[in-house]
């Protein structure tokens, strides 16, 4: 029930962002969102993997900040490497492991890794990720996992359980 409400609220927010805040739009949007929630909620599995306790929501907000900071850092880092005359790269594909179990959590982790400094997820195979790293600083699995995955994993672990 709580998750059905979340589904309804997300649909309504997307509609308001698209259509603006006039009263007619909100009423029609609310009715259609409610219908969609009733019809499709049992089939929509995307929200079933979220933990909905206060701690998870708090961690989710922190995660957004950590992610934004890493995104800015990664952009400046790549831009610096591009304009540097000798192109200071030391690339390679390394293997890392994740502790996350939920599918949605793994997807979000892979996408976060792609958008962080110098790393690009090439292939996933169960709990193994193969990551193209523009500046390899540790070649074994433990060291690479610690440097690439840990900073996001500790938040996603709480959010998705």
């Amino acid at each position, binding site marked *: 029930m709580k998750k059905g409400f979340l589904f309804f609220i997300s649909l309504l927010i997307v509609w308001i962002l698209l259509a603006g805040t006039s009263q007619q739009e909100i009423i029609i949007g609310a009715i259609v969102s409610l219908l969609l929630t009733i019809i499709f909620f049992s089939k929509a599995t995307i929200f079933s993997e979220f933990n909905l306790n206060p701690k998870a929501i708090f961690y989710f907000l922190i995660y957004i900040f950590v992610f934004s900071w890493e995104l800015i850092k990664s952009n400046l880092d790549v831009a610096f490497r591009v304009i540097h005359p000798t192109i200071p790269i030391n690339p390679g*594909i390394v293997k890392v492991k994740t502790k996350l179990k939920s599918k949605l959590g793994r997807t979000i982790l892979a996408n976060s890794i792609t*958008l962080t400094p110098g790393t690009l997820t090439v292939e996933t195979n169960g709990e193994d990720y193969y990551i193209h790293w523009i500046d390899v600083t540790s070649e074994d699995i433990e060291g690479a996992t610690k440097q690439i995955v840990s900073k996001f994993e500790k938040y996603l672990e709480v959010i998705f359980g």
Partner: protein
Amino acid sequence: MEMLGAIVTLAGSILLFLGALGILRMPDVYNRMQAGTKATTLGSILFLAGISIGHYECGCFGKIIIIILFVIFTNPISSNTLARAAHFAGIGLTKRSVKDDLKDDDIENRGEEK
């Protein structure tokens, strides 16, 4: 306000330009993909944000936020798929590379045998 929007848009354009330069300068497919994914993500975000700040009277913040979320969600997925396809097709890494765990583990060929 228009000035601030123009500055943000300019910053976005510079990042997009650096992304394009990176695609020219980097030595192999995967490094090019790195430049093409990262610099363009923040570049597009700043570009769109600059437009919504500069034309604040049009009330298009909501739509811009939706577009930005769309870029954040789809950009890494597309680059992941392209890199994976390139590796499946057997395109090697540059000679400056340190290691290639994916090739060593050979999971691509194992998939074909099933």
